[in-house]
C-alpha cells in the first residue's frame, strides 16, 4: 500500500529552510542550492539586414523574463550567424531594458562581428556568447540584441550570409535562464 507524506517545509538540523511550499505547488528552496529556476527562449530565422552605423534592434532577438528574487542572476545565451556584404567592421551589443550590458569595452560592445576581405566578396561567420547578468531586480526585464554596421560600406546580415538564398537562412537564438543567486 502506498503512502503520502504531506509537508510544507523541510529544514536542516540547524532549523534552516531547505524546501518550502506555499501549499499551492509553488516551491522555494534555501540558499546554496544553485539551480536554474526558469528558462525562456526564442528562435528566429528572420533575416535582418542593416546599413545603420548606429545601433538598431535586430528583429527576433528580444525576450522578457521576470526574476523571482533580486539576488538571482540571468544567464544569457545568444547565438546567430552573420554575413557581411563587403569589407566592413560591425558590432553587436545586448540591452537589458534600456541599459547596455557592458563587458568593460568602452564602446559597450559585447563583441565584434568582423570580416576583412575583398570588396566584392562576402564574409560570414557565427557569433555566440554566454553571459551571466546580475540585474538585481524582480521587475520584468527585456533583453534584446542590437547591431550596427561599422566603418566602410555595405551591410550586415543576421541569419544569412547575404546570399539572397532562403535555403541559406539560419536560425538564431536567445535564451534566458534565471539562476538562483
Amino acid at each position, binding site marked *: 500500500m502506498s503512502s503520502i507524506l504531506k509537508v510544507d517545509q523541510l529544514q536542516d538540523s540547524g532549523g534552516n529552510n531547505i524546501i518550502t511550499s506555499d501549499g499551492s505547488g509553488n516551491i522555494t528552496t534555501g540558499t546554496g542550492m544553485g539551480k536554474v529556476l526558469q528558462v525562456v527562449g526564442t528562435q528566429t530565422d*528572420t533575416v*535582418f539586414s542593416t546599413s545603420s552605423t548606429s545601433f538598431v534592434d535586430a528583429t527576433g532577438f528580444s525576450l522578457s523574463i521576470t526574476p523571482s528574487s533580486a539576488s538571482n542572476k540571468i544567464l544569457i545565451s545568444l547565438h546567430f550567424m552573420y554575413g557581411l556584404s563587403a569589407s566592413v567592421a560591425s558590432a553587436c551589443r545586448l540591452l537589458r531594458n534600456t541599459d547596455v550590458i557592458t563587458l568593460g569595452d568602452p564602446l559597450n560592445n559585447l563583441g565584434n562581428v568582423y570580416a576583412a576581405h575583398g570588396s566584392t566578396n562576402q564574409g560570414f561567420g557565427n557569433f555566440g556568447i554566454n553571459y551571466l547578468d546580475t540585474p538585481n531586480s524582480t521587475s520584468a526585464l527585456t533583453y534584446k540584441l542590437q547591431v550596427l554596421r561599422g566603418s566602410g560600406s555595405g551591410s550586415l546580415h543576421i541569419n544569412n550570409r*547575404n*546570399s539572397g538564398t532562403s535555403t541559406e537562412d539560419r536560425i538564431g537564438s536567445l535564451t534566458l535562464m534565471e539562476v538562483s543567486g
Partner: protein
Amino acid sequence: MIIDAILKINSNAKCSVSGSDIDTCEITWHDGTTPISKEDIKAMIPTVEQELKDAEQAAIDKKASGKQKLKDLGLDDAEIKALIG
C-alpha cells in the same frame, strides 16, 4: 539582397530590413534617409543578383588563373595546395 539593392540605388542609405521577401519585408529608414519605394527596390534586385553571381564567378576564375600561373612557374599540385589550400 534587398538592402544591397537599396544601397545600389543610394549608397549612403541608412536602413534596416526585416525579412528576405521584398513584398513582405519591413524596411526601416534611419538618420533621415529618404525612403525608396519597394517597386524601385524590386526593379534593382536582378541587377544586384547578377553582380553577386559575377563577383562569385570572378573569384572562382581568379583562383583558377592563380593556380595555373603557379603551375606555369613549376609548382606541382601538392605545393600549390600547401600554399593556398
